[in-house]
């Protein structure tokens, strides 16, 4: 493990959280990330908050087409004739 990776600061760590979740960190950076959050209460809590954020976002439902646009679309589907 290189010295620069070993000395990952909190300010650097917060920029790596998504890459960490996505499994996109190289092995040495991943190890250094995990080592850091084990020993640092601030970053441990930060990573927890990011997980909570993702969970809460996952509870939202999506806004769909307006009823008028949906009705228009249905008309298009109904009137559509295959070119064949």
């Amino acid at each position, binding site marked *: 493990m290189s010295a620069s990776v070993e000395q990952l*600061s*909190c*300010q*650097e760590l*917060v*920029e790596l*959280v*998504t*890459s960490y979740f*996505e499994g*996109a960190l190289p092995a040495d950076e991943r190890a250094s990330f995990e080592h850091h959050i084990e020993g*640092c*209460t*601030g*970053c441990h*809590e*930060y990573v927890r*908050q*990011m997980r*909570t*954020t*993702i969970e*809460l*976002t*996952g*509870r*939202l*439902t*999506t*806004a*769909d*087409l*307006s009823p008028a*646009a*949906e009705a*228009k*679309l249905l008309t*298009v*589907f109904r009137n*559509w004739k295959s*070119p*064949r």
Partner: protein
Amino acid sequence: MYNASLLRVALIYVASRAVAEDVVQETWIGVLNGIDRFEGRSSLKTWIFRILTNIAKTRGQREGRTVPFSALERPDAVPEAAVDADRFLPADHGRWPGHWASKPERWPEERLLAAETRAVVEQAIERLPPAQRTVISLRDVEGWSSDETRNALGVSETNQRVLLHRARSKVRQALEDYFSEAQ
């Protein structure tokens, strides 16, 4: 079936919801007319979103909107920190450079599922720039994979991740602000 996602992606390229709805409708017409030519080399979902982005880009160009493309293609052009620099000790600090000056506090567990908290998340996502809003919506609201998302938007994996990271970081910050002011 994908109308909400189609609408969201269209809104990256065109200014108004009305135009975006037109784009979605044109997309389905394009799908119906072109389905015979669909060769199954990509997934059907990816193919539908390609049709949408082509139509939306053309409409957006006609409207003179070009800014969002750079947001998708070069998100790193404008650096953005996940957390404000003043939350950390300065780089020239003798002992702990770049460590927390003010640590994140534990969030109140019992308020996480409250309707008000949900509204905070919703508003934070609404305020995001369109490219970030779209990526977080597809990934975290609709549960798409990173491959599905980057194929639909035609962005690199790295850029998709940068946009997602910025979006999630801002939503986290909004929640932190909310919980710390309301205690």
